[in-house]
């Protein structure tokens, strides 16, 4: 079959669109994998976790965040748009006075930061927050 010039152009445009879409698909998959390795595939309810992060982070290299979830045994933090979605996992011991912690994280670009808490009864809860990043924090 002979391809006309127009058909060639369509093919090219299709390829470009596919290439453009691919990265977000890969990242979403990575996020799902990271999440299910923490939850073991269990259902995750919305709310019940407090995640505080700045709305706009000028420097993606150090973005202060804090998480808190009363009654949680563990809280995992994920960054959907990072090359590796896992950020940190906090496990609270017997002498933890509150199920809360603060730290500083790296964000590659503007994205959702997700906190997932594992409650004492084995259920999971999540909260997401969008952080706008001016300068990405993953280096060339």
């Amino acid at each position: 079959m002979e391809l006309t010039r127009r058909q060639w152009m369509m093919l090219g445009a299709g390829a470009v669109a596919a290439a453009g879409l691919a990265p977000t698909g890969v990242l979403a998959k990575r996020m799902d994998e990271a999440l299910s390795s923490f939850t073991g595939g269990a259902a995750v309810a919305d709310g019940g976790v407090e995640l505080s992060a700045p709305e706009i982070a000028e420097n993606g290299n150090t973005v202060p965040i804090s998480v808190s979830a009363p009654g949680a045994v563990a809280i995992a933090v994920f960054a959907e748009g990072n090359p590796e979605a896992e950020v940190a996992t906090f496990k609270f011991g017997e002498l933890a006075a509150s199920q809360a912690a603060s730290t500083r994280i790296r964000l590659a670009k503007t994205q959702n930061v997700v906190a997932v808490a594992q409650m004492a009864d084995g259920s999971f809860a999540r909260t997401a927050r969008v952080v706008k990043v001016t300068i990405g924090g993953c280096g060339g």
Partner: protein
Amino acid sequence: MAKGVKPRVKVPKTVAAGDVITIKTLISHPMESGQRKDKEGNVIPRSIINRFTCDFNGTNVLDVKLDPAVSTNPYFQFEARVPEAGEVRFTWYDDDGSVYETRKSIAIA
């Protein structure tokens, strides 16, 4: 062992029994993510602290798993309950196998 690693922690010296205290920790460490490249375009290998724990008299307070997305000089702030006089032990585990440890004792006022 990464160079210039220096742990710093802030813990009150005396508390009332059963009090809740806020603990702040910082350790100077480059936390090389394994994503960056040098001038020749070679990937700089990952070298981070992958675990941090805090215990009071052998009872766990906090156990954190760190991934490369934690910033240079990892900082943590959290709260602990102090039932008695004793010692808080902070431990950081490096990718290269080094373990950095700091202890602080707390007296009951």
